[in-house]
């Protein structure tokens, strides 16, 4: 199947991919503004530039599928169905945030939506999806209360080029391969871990090649091409669901901005930045949609306008959401507190 051929896909689907990418881009831009305006207290690691990965990958997922994410997680969570309202509310540290203001950007999670969580620890989410896949396997084998929530699913973890040097990467891939678990390990290679370029943190170019250490397929997708990411992911998901085991899928991409809000990213060569800016996943996909008469220029504008509205509403929702009370901090340490004893 020519993965890049728009004619293979129905228009509605393609427009949704485009829309989801725009949503992420604008969500992040606005988050940055809101942070600068003092509404968001914690760190932000913008996903801008990598939208095609999250959207392409999550488009291949359905009910009962789970993702685990990273410090750069907003894109993944939106693509997996996260509501901008509750996400902004969390960034604002309010009661209606997905985590009731307790988590913030680094810990956004919603297991009901299949989101096991962003993560503040580089590589920290990788072992979790091995466990999620183990739960899926158990649910496939047996019925028990709740097993219907993950029967037949796959679990997916996003992580960066930098994270591929953590021990958790190695241990998790080995374990998932050994047990033939339904996991897809999605490495977003954006060429940097913080301020350190890939060639200063590892001696390989294609992280996908590390799959051979586990006798696991290693696939590479153009992470700036949402269809390519979707297509390659579809293969991996099919393999996982039919019991052939995990895949390591590397998406080559780039972040447009610094590592976090405030980083001016002076460590990157101008030409490199220019090269990748020209590969903007949204702009290019929009152009192709127009070229192929799947959308009109005005329709792109309509998408922008709709999303502007969605995000305005979301920011307002966040702003109107009540602050948590200080004493809420003392809740949710445990499910079972033995009459408060466990908290003292």
């Amino acid at each position, binding site marked *: 199947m020519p993965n890049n051929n728009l004619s293979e896909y129905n228009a509605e689907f393609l427009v949704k991919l485009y829309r989801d990418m725009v949503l992420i881009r604008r969500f992040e831009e606005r988050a940055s503004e809101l942070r600068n305006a003092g509404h968001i207290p914690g760190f932000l690691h913008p996903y801008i530039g990598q939208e095609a990965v999250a959207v392409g990958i999550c488009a291949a997922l359905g009910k009962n599928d789970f993702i685990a994410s990273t410090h750069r997680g907003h894109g993944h969570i939106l693509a997996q169905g996260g509501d901008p309202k509750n996400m902004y509310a969390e960034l604002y540290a309010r009661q209606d945030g997905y985590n009731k203001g307790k988590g913030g950007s680094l*810990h956004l999670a919603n297991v009901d939506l299949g989101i096991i969580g962003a993560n503040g620890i580089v590589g920290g989410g990788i072992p979790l999806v091995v466990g999620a896949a183990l739960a899926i396997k158990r649910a496939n084998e047996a019925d028990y209360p709740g097993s219907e929530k993950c029967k037949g699913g796959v679990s997916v973890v996003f992580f960066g080029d930098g994270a591929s040097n953590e021990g958790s990467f190695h241990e998790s891939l080995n374990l998932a391969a050994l047990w033939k678990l339904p996991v897809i390990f999605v490495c977003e290679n954006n060429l940097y871990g913080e301020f350190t370029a890939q060639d200063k943190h590892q001696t390989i170019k294609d992280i996908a090649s590390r799959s051979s250490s586990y006798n696991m397929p290693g696939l590479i997708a153009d992470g700036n091409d949402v269809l390519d990411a979707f297509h390659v992911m579809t293969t991996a998901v099919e393999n996982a669901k039919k019991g052939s085991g995990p895949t390591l899928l590397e998406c080559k991409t780039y972040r447009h901005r610094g590592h976090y809000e405030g980083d001016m990213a002076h460590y990157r060569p101008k030409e490199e930045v220019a090269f990748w800016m020209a590969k903007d996943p949204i702009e290019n996909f929009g152009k192709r949609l127009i070229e192929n008469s799947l959308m009109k220029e005005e329709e792109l504008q309509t998408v922008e306008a709709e999303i502007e509205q969605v995000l305005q509403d979301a920011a307002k929702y966040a702003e109107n959401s009540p602050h948590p009370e200080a004493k809420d901090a003392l809740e949710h340490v*445990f499910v079972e507190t033995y009459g408060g004893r466990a908290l003292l």
Partner: protein
Amino acid sequence: MSSRRISYSQAINEALSEEMERDPSILMLGEDVAEPGGVFGVTKGLYQKFGGERVLDTPISEQALVGAALGASLLGVPTITEIMFSDFVTLAMDQLVNQAAKFHYMTGGRTSVPMLVRMVTGASGAASAQHSQSLEAWFTHTPGLKVVTASTPYEAKGLLKSAIRDPDPVLFFEHKLLYNGKGEVPEEDYTLPIGEGTVALEGSDVTIVAYLHMVPKSLKAAKILSAEGISVEVWNPRSLVPFDREGLRQTLKKTGRLVVVQEAPKRSGFGAEIAAIAAEECFDLIKGPIRRVGAANTPIPYAPVMENLVIPGVDDIVEAVRRTI
């Protein structure tokens, strides 16, 4: 209730078996816990009974092992994991401390982590510095984790069952030197409540607080002291988190004198927390210095003669009590 004498390790094995029978979603993971039945034989027969789908041998990958247990637990599949020697948990600290302990909290209560980790702990048989540690204090300092200990077969079975049923991450500490010790255990299903201490021996002059292998040692010390006319109460908190403050207060009401005993190095052990609680909340009851007995602040040496000096012995406990009177 009818009962019989079984070993501590058999009591644990029964608890594991009965709980896995009760709840078909529970999985067990660990290094050589399945086919081989565990290095200490504690999980013997479970693989044969529940099959390789439920009892899994893992590669030597502690981080992935504990992380996988956490991931499965998050999706509603309770897990039981063994850390073969608790010293190896140093390789899984991120998954336990940054992930498992904090998930329920960070998600505003929207997730839960019914995860049980069995920690095989303590000094035994000249195993030296990397196979002998008692690390429970670290985890009591990690909000979000529960820490439970067992000193007898009866406690082991009853507390482990409660810990498995607990919806939060629990570290269950088992002491190697207790595995072969036998004791009365009911035939019937029973559980013991987490968060409630127990008076292991009644007395009136001094309270010894002890857990794990320090309980039998303290009981021996009490016997020796009793011959000298000193009446010792031995109180065992059983779970360190949650900790039974009220139980501590009750025994101090009786005795007013306190000796806290732990196998871990004295500095910053859980004994310090117990002493600090007493000095803060029970100061009105305390009649003299609160003494602590713990290992010397050294790594565990290999030579038995040195190990014996480092690990608190019955003598050390006796001596501390004498100095307290």
